[in-house]
């Protein structure tokens, strides 16, 4: 999964630059969909809600920060290196966007933990 972080990077760009990045990004994504490397991708609304401790609901994430997630791609590739190579093509990189590349886990880490704990208990 490619997670695009940063929602403040396009400030200060001219309409022409924005258009150029927008076109590049579209071509990038379409290409990945066409050759089956991307199986999903979505931008997120800039506003949402956060559910935290004691199930309290608060506003957020706050728009326009370096860490805020703006969207994601779900890739289907053979290796981490291939995912990295694709991420390096992200047209937003020169403007300050950060791409997090995270393998999808075979199983929830929590389940792993239980298995390890069970194994440890046996020995």
């Amino acid at each position, binding site marked *: 999964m490619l997670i695009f972080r940063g929602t403040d990077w396009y400030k200060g760009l001219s309409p022409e630059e924005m*258009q150029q*990045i927008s076109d590049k990004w579209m071509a990038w994504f379409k290409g990945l969909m066409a050759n089956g490397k991307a199986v999903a991708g979505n931008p*997120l609304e800039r506003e949402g809600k956060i559910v935290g401790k004691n199930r309290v609901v608060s506003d957020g994430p706050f728009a326009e920060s370096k860490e805020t*997630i703006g969207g994601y791609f779900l890739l289907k590739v053979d290796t981490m290196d291939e995912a990295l190579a694709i991420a390096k093509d992200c047209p937003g990189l020169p403007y*300050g966007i950060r791409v997090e590349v*995270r393998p999808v886990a075979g199983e929830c880490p929590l389940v792993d*933990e239980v298995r390890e704990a069970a194994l440890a208990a046996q020995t």
Partner: protein
Amino acid sequence: MNAKNNQYLLLFTGNEWWNKLSAEQIQQVIDQSKEWYGNLAAAGKVKASQALAREGASISGKNARVITDGPFAESKEAIGGYLLLEAASLEEAIAIARECPSLCHGTTIDVRPLSEDCPLDFRARQLGCKGSLAELRTATV
């Protein structure tokens, strides 16, 4: 706020919270989570759901610098997994998120509506360009 196709992305953050729990407590959270998830899936609310591996890479800058030992496992901000939810409204999505069993152990859930267009596109249209990213709508699930 209307989410694209009534879809909301729940992002689970706060990794490694289970290290504080006993084996019994962990088993309990797993059982509760299975029930929570099972009910949502049975009701047709789950579009996709996956856990993310604790390792990964972060890429940034003009030269596409790669940092491979990202602070994923330790960071409170690290995303541990996601659930793509179909819900009638943001309120329903929040209500579902609030039932998540791991909340009482320190998980935080971001509830984010999928967007009709990306922030860049929105800004592009503000500035008067056509903004081609809106085409993503037809290309994505």
